[in-house]
């Protein structure tokens, strides 16, 4: 059973499992047109991009995408109370119980897929029946369901349409007292629209799906309507096949359902076939006499329901027995002709001609922020919370500015300058040298420490794994410095983690160094490794990044950005320096190149 009051009285946080942008957009349009302050859909479980763009009214909003339900941040996980599963029939069995297990405050959901094997539907039904033993009353509607709709409160699924003008035409924002229950999704919407034309308001509408074993049974759907204080009468559209209507007839006779029911059972046409075919829905095949439309109509009528012999009579019964309300069309903001933007920008903008950084005017930022603070704000897309991070950024930028003329990036810059090229070409030539072997090791080191400390790998095992695959550990090792002659820059960097309470990554790094130093004196923690470790610790402890947020920074090469930025100053310096000295075109002396002797 569904506790409709709970769904009416609470704001919803919904995840969509799988991707169906039109259905999701229609749910957001419903929220917006209902006057909700924020979109109810909080996350998408899918693959591809990290964020998906949708309309919120005429503006846009972004909804985060996670590869699986366990990757949703805990805070959001705890909010989620409903799901809409639009993944395929093959996937529904694996994705649904996983969702139930991962979301502590889940109240229910809808499975949209057709082609879910009967066995799987029954398994899901049994899973939630067991969950009932606990205090939460969980419902799952479907499979093959367009969902549930409560006017102005909840649209979970395609129900009511996917275009905003459909939602408005069907009066989905003002509630009434008639429930629509239906196996067929299309007919649910047809009836919603016919009721709207008669100015009959909906208390709720629900399509339980045309499969043989709907997880939310027709019986539960009727009992939900019976117990719902808003519902005064029930409109029901059923089809041939199955025996649910006999159960309903019993419930009516037992007075477990007392509200008036106006019903139609479609499928009389089956009578013209010598051997009736499978109609549109999986359940729509009458194999026994009791499953025919005529027999089921009689059973319901005998129990006391108002049953239309024809569909027309059914519609007339609705018109003659349900009072119209003053369910007038409201004025809604025009949502037609919306266009998605081509880009989204999260760091800066232009407000009436004045540049802004993180929504603040640049001139104001320039007054109150130091340059390192501005830089780290723009790199992270948010203002730093701690002074430590700003100070550390400043130190890193200083320490990485230059490392003499002999390193390969500087050499390339100088050669390009001496070839007479311009500033930007010379700078780019230096920048293009940055990679795994030169300057690009901070990111790889961050990846190492994040993986090692994050997965709590034993440092000895970690080193052994690298050694056995003959992999060099980024962040460890130096050409010049060794344990006998340590790198003074590393000491300055490590000082920063002294103020931290956990320093998980720094500790892990030092344990690694201890092991590698036993192998060779120059397998020492280098600047790249130290910067990576301390930056990870600061972001985690002072800025609130969790491991998954940190691995996103690694994936985006944030850690290398510090080197690129800082060393650009060095490269520009070398360019200007060479221009001052003007030594002319460089040519490598021939005796600096060994020619391989191919003859022998």
């Amino acid at each position, binding site marked *: 059973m569904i506790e409709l009051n709970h769904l009416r009285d609470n704001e919803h946080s919904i995840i969509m499992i799988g991707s169906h942008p039109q259905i999701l957009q229609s749910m957001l349009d419903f929220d917006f047109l209902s006057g909700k302050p924020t979109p109810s859909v909080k996350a998408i479980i899918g693959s591809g991009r990290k964020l998906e763009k949708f309309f919120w009214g005429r503006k846009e909003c972004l909804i985060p995408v996670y590869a699986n339900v366990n990757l949703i941040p805990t805070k959001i996980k705890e909010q989620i109370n409903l799901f809409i599963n639009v993944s395929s029939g093959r996937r529904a069995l694996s994705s649904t119980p996983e969702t139930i297990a991962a979301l502590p405050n889940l109240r229910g959901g809808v499975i949209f897929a057709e082609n879910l094997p009967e066995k799987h539907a*029954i398994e899901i039904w049994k899973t939630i029946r067991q969950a009932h033993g606990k205090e939460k009353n969980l419902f799952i509607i479907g499979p093959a369901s367009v969902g549930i709709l409560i006017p102005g409160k909840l649209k979970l699924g395609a129900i009511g349409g*996917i*275009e905003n003008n*459909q939602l408005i035409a069907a009066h989905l924002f003002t509630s009434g007292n008639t429930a629509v229950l239906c196996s*067929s*999704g299309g007919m649910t*919407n047809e009836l919603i629209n016919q009721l709207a034309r008669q100015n009959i308001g909906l208390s709720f509408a629900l399509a339980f799906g045309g499969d043989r074993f709907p997880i939310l049974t027709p019986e539960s759907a009727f009992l939900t309507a019976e117990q719902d204080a808003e519902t005064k009468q029930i409109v029901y559209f059923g089809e041939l096949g199955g025996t649910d209507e006999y159960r309903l007839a019993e419930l009516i006779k037992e007075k477990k359902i007392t509200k008036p029911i106006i019903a139609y059972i479609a499928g009389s046409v089956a009578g013209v076939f010598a051997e009736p075919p499978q*109609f*549109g829905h999986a359940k729509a095949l009458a194999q026994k006499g009791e499953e025919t439309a005529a027999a089921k109509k009689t059973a319901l009528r005998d129990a006391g329901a108002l049953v239309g012999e024809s569909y*027309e009579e059914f519609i007339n019964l609705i018109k003659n027995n349900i009072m119209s309300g003053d369910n007038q069309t409201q004025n809604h903001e025009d949502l037609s002709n919306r266009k998605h933007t081509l880009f989204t920008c999260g760091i800066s903008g232009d407000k009436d001609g004045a540049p802004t950084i993180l929504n603040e005017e640049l001139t104001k930022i320039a007054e109150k922020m130091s340059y390192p603070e501005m830089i780290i704000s723009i790199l992270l897309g948010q203002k730093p919370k701690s002074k430590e991070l700003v100070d550390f950024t400043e130190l890193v930028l200083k320490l990485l500015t230059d490392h003499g003329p002999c390193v390969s990036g500087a050499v390339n810059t100088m050669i390009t300058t001496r070839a007479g090229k311009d500033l930007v070409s010379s700078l780019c030539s230096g920048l293009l040298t940055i990679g795994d072997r030169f300057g690009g090791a901070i990111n790889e080191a961050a990846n190492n420490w994040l993986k090692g400390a994050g997965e709590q790998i034993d440092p000895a095992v970690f080193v052994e794994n690298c050694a056995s695959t003959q992999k060099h550990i980024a962040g460890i090792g130096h050409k010049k410095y060794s344990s006998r002659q340590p790198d003074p820059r590393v000491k300055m960097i490590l000082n920063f983690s002294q103020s931290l309470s956990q320093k998980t990554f720094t500790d892990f790094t030092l344990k690694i160094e201890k092991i590698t130093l036993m192998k060779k004196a120059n397998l020492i923690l280098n600047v790249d490794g130290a910067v990576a470790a301390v930056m990870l610790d600061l972001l985690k402890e002072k800025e609130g990044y969790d491991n998954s947020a940190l691995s996103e920074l690694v994936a985006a090469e944030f850690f290398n950005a510090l080197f690129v930025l800082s060393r650009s100053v060095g490269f520009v310096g070398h360019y200007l320096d060479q221009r001052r000295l003007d030594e002319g075109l460089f040519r490598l002396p021939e005796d600096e190149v060994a020619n391989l002797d191919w003859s022998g």
Partner: protein
Amino acid sequence: MPRVKLFEHNAKRIVCKRLFFPYNGIAVTPQTDIDSVIKTLAYDKKYVVKVDQGVKKRFKNGLVVLNIGRAEIKTTLDNLKAKGFDYFLIEEFVAHNADEEKYLCLEREREGITASVSATGGVDIENNAGAIKKYLLDDAGCEAVAKQIGLDLKTITKLEQIFDDCYFSFLEINPLVVSNNIPYFLDMAAQVDSAGQFFANHAWNETDIVPNNKKTPQENAVAVLKKNSQASFSLSVINPDGAIFLLLSGGGGSLVVADEVYNLGYADKLANYGEYSGNPNEEETYFYAKQVLSLLKNSKSDKKIIIIGGGVANFTDVRVTFRGIIRALDEEKDALSAQGGSASGGNKSGVKIFVRRGGPGQTEGLAMMKEFLEKNNLCGGVYGPELPLQEIVKLAIK
């Protein structure tokens, strides 16, 4: 997705293989070389020949021939073929007394797999319905069933396991004869859940499923379309020379429209039932509409109409699907105008098309359809949700 019937031969092969029982039945299909099959049969054995096409009440309709020798098989098959069947099964005849015939029927139900059993089975099972007892196949249920039938518990448990693992929905064995704890499945009717094929670990595939009886090329084309699409399609011919052609959308809405034809007393004029749903694309809808139009062209009826009907769709795009239908109508517009009237060259009134539909993109979709139909003098009326769904049938038939 619906339940589908397995060939009896294939069902027995699947079940016996997993029970480690031998099964020597021979399937006869239109491709089988019957003479070479007969050569493999023994002179001194008796055989059973039966139609294996998922038809009910075979015995009562004379579609099972018992206890015949090798020499009679060919004539027997020819006789059965003459009745219009294509698939047969030859098995060794198992001699037994009528009172040894038992009944066992497994079915997948909400609470679990159930077994209906009776110690008195055979062709008259329906008259002995009172003797049938039904058990849920939990541990106690399996034990009770084993006792009733005289089979050991292990075999019943294993049978239940096979039923479950192979995504069976229904498995009726009647009669079942048990001798020395070996079950003989004399007749078997099995249905599997077509949605379970992917999970059934290659237990069965499309070739094990009985094709629907005598389909038209158009129905077959739609079956293939359905198989290869995310969307859903169905087409069944009711009367090849019918006058009312249905091009409907939505499982429920299509039933309402077809019912209304029936309710108004025009069932004998109904040419077909069918529907598309689940947001098919333009190409698929075009192809589907072509099949319905092809049926229409083949009909010998004097007067013909098409009802393009459906409820107010949730997510099926009316623009896109109507674009496909219009393309199909456009290709056949000359044929459609030339239909109707008397064959001797009387006035050819042409086919009239009646439309009622709603859903995403309905404004553009309906306008497009109206413009096309009016331009080509095919228009009987184009309506949106303002017209109650069943009314389109009245307008069309009038």
